Each structure stands twice: as C-alpha cells, then as structure tokens.
C-alpha cells in the first residue's frame, strides 16, 4: 500500500451564496499521477487553488505528508515541496527563461548572506540546468519568456515548477492549447518524472487523451461534488461520468 501524500478532507468552498466545492475529499498516493476532471465550472480549479493555498476553504482540512496545511500561507507551499503551474500562464514575462527557472529555485537559494548574494549559486545551478535540459528549453535559455511561442511558455511553467524540486506537482491544464506532438512529449516527460524521480502529480486537465494515458487514478467532479473515482478504465465506463459529460441520453444508449 502506497503512502497517501496528499489528503483533502471534506473541503467545502463557498463564494457568497454559491457553493463551488461541496464536501469534497481526495487522496493522492505517493508516486502516482492523479487526474481531476469534470465539465467546465465543476470546481476543479477551485479545489486546485485550495490545495495550493490561493483560496481558503470554507470548511474541511488539507493534509500534506501528515502536516495540516489548511491554514498555511501560499508562499510556504514551495518550502513544503508543493509546486504548481497556472492555467492562464503566469510567467515572469520580461525575464529570461533562465531567470524564470532560477526564481523557481528561490527556496533553495537561502542560507547565509554570502549564499543569498550569489548570482549563480553552484549547487542550485546544476539542478536548474538539468531542469532546463529535460524540458527541452536549452536553446531558449536567454530568451525572454514573453517572446517564446505558446508551447514553450507552457513548458517554462512546468520547468519553473520543477525547479522547486517538488514532491507534489500540481498542474492546472498543462496540455490546454498544445499540439498533438507537444502533448505526446508532455506525456513522456510526466511519466518519466513519476517513474524515475518518484514525483507525485495532481493534474487538472481537459485533454482526455493525456488524462487516460498517464493517470493512475482519476477523480471526476461535477457541480462541486465528486461523482466518480477509479482507474481511467473504470471512470471511462461510469454512467454518471458519461452523463455529466454528454447528457442523459448518451448514458443510457
């Protein structure tokens, strides 16, 4: 039995009178890829933002590696080893690829004053170069993030998150807007990160091709409530899921 790295326990989020997420629970096992899917407005992003501590749940608990992080500030997440990407790209646009990734390693550049003053701390640079190579951003190292094409900007989001050296990687629609070839390489990269580096990934995604291929488990949300959970195969055949996505008739067809 694998250890549960992330536990979301009975989380409810209300915005005014609107219930965005309703009594939602989720366990993510260490060393797995767990996908969170559902139709638009199902509450996936809200849940995701609660875990990365950008939103505060109205009630419920979030536990990471046996530590309650329900009230921890968002800026502490990197130190816990939780990294996230952003759905609508939140890159440091005017900075170079290298600088973007270096800021990802912010929490590893601490220590004594001379360490903090170093422009390129050697211990950190090795890992940064590795991340840049692995994500295929090497040739663009000195390009400004703003000038990259969309596919590479998405990769830079991922690279920057990896520079945190996370134990849990939260990805918000990493494949949205990518071409098939790019999705295939993202698929390879994520699988490799989990299999060889032991990373744990929670991914919110609409691109089913990717979800079905990489996920160990899939959780389906609709109207803020969990409607199904299981392996990709189980979820694909679940009538409730088909109904949520395609409407009632399709489920009974």
């Amino acid at each position: 039995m694998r250890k549960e790295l992330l536990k979301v326990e009975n989380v409810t989020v209300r915005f005014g009178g609107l219930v965005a997420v309703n009594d939602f629970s989720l366990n993510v096992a260490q060393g797995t890829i767990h996908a969170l899917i559902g139709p638009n407005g199902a509450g996936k992003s809200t849940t995701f933002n609660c875990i990365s501590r950008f939103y505060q749940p109205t009630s419920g608990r979030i536990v990471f590696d046996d530590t309650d992080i329900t009230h921890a500030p968002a800026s502490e997440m990197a130190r816990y080893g939780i990294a996230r990407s952003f759905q609508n790209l939140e890159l440091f646009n005017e900075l170079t690829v290298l600088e973007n990734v270096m800021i990802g390693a912010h929490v590893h550049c601490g220590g004594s004053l001379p360490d903090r003053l170093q422009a390129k701390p050697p211990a950190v640079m090795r890992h940064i170069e590795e991340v840049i190579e692995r994500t295929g951003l090497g040739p663009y190292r000195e390009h400004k993030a703003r000038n990259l094409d969309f596919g590479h900007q998405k990769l830079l989001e991922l690279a920057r998150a990896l520079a945190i050296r996370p134990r849990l990687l939260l990805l918000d629609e990493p494949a949205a807007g990518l071409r098939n070839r790019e999705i295939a390489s993202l698929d390879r990269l994520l699988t490799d990160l989990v299999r060889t580096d032991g990373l744990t990934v929670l991914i919110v995604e609409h691109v089913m091709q990717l979800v079905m291929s990489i996920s160990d488990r899939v959780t389906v949300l609709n109207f803020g409530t969990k409607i199904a959970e299981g392996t990709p195969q189980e979820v694909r055949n679940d009538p409730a899921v088909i109904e949520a996505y395609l409407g009632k008739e399709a489920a009974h067809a």
Partner: protein
Amino acid sequence: MDLQLALLFLQQGVASGLVVGSVYALLALAIVIIFKTSEVPNFAQGEMLMAAGYVALYLLVFRALPAWASISMTIVVAFAGAALFRRVVLTQVAHASGSPVNLVIATLGLSYVLKGLVRQTGFGDTPRSFPALVSTDSLMIGQASVTRLDLAILGTAIIVMAAFFWMFGYTKLGRAMRSVGMNPKAAQLVGVNLNRIHTIIWGLSGAISAIAALLISPKLLMTADMGSVVTLGFAAAIVGGFASLPGAVVGGFIIGIVEQLVGLFVSSRAITLAPFLAIMLVLILRPQGLFGGRVVIKKV
C-alpha cells in the same frame, strides 16, 4: 479650554467641516470614478481643479462674461480637456506599455504641465482672489457662524453628487460605467465600447473637478499650487476605501470635519498634517477603508 468654548469650537468645526468637506467629497468622487474603472490614481486631479479655477477666473474677471456663461464654459472646457487627455495621451501610453505605473507617471506629467502652463499665462504668478457669486454675509446656525456662500457651496455640492449618483445608478450610461468597473471584459462582450466609456468617465471626472474648483476658489487665495488640495481628496478617497463611491463622499465629509477640528483645537499650522494623519490612521486601523468590501480574490 473650558467646556463652553469646546462646544462652540465643536459646532463651528462641524459646520465649516461640512462645507469644505463637500468639496473634498466631490474631489474624492472624481478620483474614485477614474480609479474604479481604470485602476489609475489620477495625480493630476488637483491640477485639473486648479486649471479649471483659472479658466473660470479668466472668463469671469478678465473677459467679464456673465456668471452662467463662465461657469458652463469652464465645465465644458474641463470635460473636454480631461476626455482629450484620456483619449489621446493615455490610450497611447497603454499602447506603448502595459504597466499601470506608466499611466500614473503620465498623470504626474499632466499635473506638472498644467501647473507650468498656468504660471506661464501670468495669472498664476501672484495669488488672486476669486469673486464670490453669493453674498458672504454670515448667519448663525446654533453657535456656528456660516456665510450664505458656505450654504450655497454645500447645497451645490450635494445637488451635483445627487445628480451623479442618479446618473450612475439609473441611466444606461451609468450602467455601462458600472459594468466597466466590475468586469471590463464582460462589459466589452455585451457591447459596451470601453474606449468611449473611459473617455466619458475622464471627462466627467474633469467636470466634477471644475465644479469643485468653482466652489472652493472663493474660499481660498488662488495660486498655481492650489492643486495641492487634492491631498485631502485622496485622503477622503482612502478613508472611503478607494473603490467605493458612497465611501468617497462620506470620506470627504469626515476629512473636512477632521481638518477643521484640528485647525480649531490644535493649530492652524497642523492642518497640513491632517490628511496624512488621516491616511495613516485608516491604514493602521482599517486598511480596507471604512467602506471597502472584502478583498477580491484574483482568479488564477
């Protein structure tokens, strides 16, 4: 200080505070409508007021035009000038760089240009007094002495604010403005012409500043530096939460009264410090302002 005197000061302070406060409220309103819709604190608001004051002075005294003509021309000029600045300058600034800091710098630039221009005309080199259009005979309300002019100022300011709130709350234009303030993208989707609304808002803000100028000028010595009165408008806006229109109005009255009370109870020199102290107090005690709502979460 004995109680009798303190009570007298209190009444006088509140009375004169309401009068000047009504002008600060107008100024705060002019600042907040721009900020609400474009997230830019307009640092030229005070100089827009100052320039409008000099336009009125020129028409009324040097051209000897009748009051109604001078007043309406001043308001029209202020509307057109502010709208033009938004349309020509700020559009281009936003086009050249997306940073809001640049827009703020452009408004600082405008404030200096206006100040310099007024000095260049020669009207701004000596302090001038603006003729009162209403008699300055004083009358007593309770133990406070106010002039007819004071009452006219307060009355006009309240009428203008009422008209503004009616426009903002109940007309098609007001609805469009509110929608731009809440969600510009959605407003654009439902057919609101963003550029046009922003231009009108700037014009309106200029016109309100002009009215504030007409109201406050008779009570001050006019100089090219009189735009510094804007500090009080900003203080009022901050007290009100900076994004709330009713907050701006209440903030204006609070600042007006506090300023007058400080003047009476402490010293007239300490008045300069009043807006700063008010801003700091609000920041310490209630950083979202008295009327600020909860913090809006940025969608990520």
